[in-house]
């Protein structure tokens, strides 16, 4: 019998995934000092801020630049990517990425814009899908979601029935998702969410939190 992410969700103590908008992380300004003030706008003069998913969405409403910086600070609160790599590749390509996000906001995510967004060296899905999610981007009428190494690990290990078509497109040797895979993942998460009256991001957050072989998530639900 195949696993079900909804059954897993319901049987888990991680039920507060439903409060996904309150998933919050403390971000310290000192972790971002190496970027010559490019992230200062997030801190508004403070040494540290508490940033929730809801806060990042609100920042995207205030401006695209603010939203982009908040998304990345929320996702990489230590000021580095996994393995201690810097966020410079993201910052160096900031304007290009911003222009692609604008296009996606107007036209929806397509294969061409997905590839444009992921074309920069060392700016891959761990970064770009956070931007797609927080900017309220849409792919084929489904909301874009975060798809990072933790979500991928969950899908590969538990192989939930709700994501059968996504799983059929997943290859063990692929480090990054193709457009088709990402689209299917968002569509299946959306369909599953609708069926169970949940926000699709709550399912994504549950998979993120329950990822096997990963350290506990640093974010907390407030």
């Amino acid at each position, binding site marked *: 019998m195949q696993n079900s992410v909804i059954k897993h969700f319901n049987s888990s103590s991680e039920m507060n995934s439903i409060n996904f908008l309150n998933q919050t992380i403390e971000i310290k300004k000192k972790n971002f000092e190496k970027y010559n003030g490019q992230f200062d706008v997030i801190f508004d003069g403070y040494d540290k801020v508490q940033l929730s998913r809801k806060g990042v969405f609100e920042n995207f409403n205030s401006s695209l630049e603010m939203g982009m910086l908040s998304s990345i600070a929320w996702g990489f609160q230590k000021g580095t990517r996994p393995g201690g*790599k810097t966020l410079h590749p993201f910052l160096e390509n900031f304007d290009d990425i911003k222009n692609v996000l604008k296009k996606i906001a107007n036209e929806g995510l397509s294969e061409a814009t997905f590839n444009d967004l992921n074309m920069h060296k060392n700016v*891959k899905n761990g970064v770009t899908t956070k931007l797609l999610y927080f900017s309220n981007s849409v792919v084929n009428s489904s909301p874009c979601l975060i798809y990072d190494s933790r979500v991928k690990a969950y899908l590969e290990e538990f192989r939930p029935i709700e994501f059968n078509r996504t799983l059929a497109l997943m*290859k*063990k*040797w692929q*480090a*990054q998702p193709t457009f088709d895979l990402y689209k299917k993942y968002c569509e299946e998460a959306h369909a599953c969410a609708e069926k169970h009256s949940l926000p699709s991001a709550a399912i994504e957050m549950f998979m993120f939190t329950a990822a096997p*072989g*990963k*350290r506990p998530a640093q974010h907390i639900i407030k």
Partner: protein
Amino acid sequence: MTERTEFVTKDNVHEATNLEKIRSLMINANRLGEDKLVKKCKKRIFEIAGNEGETEIEIRLFQALAAYEEILREKHNKAVRANYTKRKIKNKGAIQTLTDWALDKKVTPGFEALVSQGLEDFTGEKIVIDFAEEFPVEVVESASIKLKNVSEEIENAKLSN
């Protein structure tokens, strides 16, 4: 908790910690041709070995090392320790060890054996792919190509059989 129970069975092997008992179950499963259970036992043996690691990536690397030792054990019919690799991890660290493995164009019989048994999660190349953001792009590409090629060869061989 499982330590207190007398037997390691197919139902509790995923949480068992007694290597001797897991190995015994695996031998019996192998004798009876229960491939799925053999795979479960192997996975558990490798997972336990990961306890030597501290970071997520080290845990996976030590699991891969245990998998490599298991392949050597099967080949030589006795326990063989991968001491050279352990020294390398100690001296160069997990990232450099995995980088060297991924960039090495040579496909080892151990790598092929693990992929053919559906245990590619315990290869260094798969660890590089799973932690892609921690490695240079060319290292990830090399790991992906190796895993893709070997997976496809194995798949094609299965189809032609």
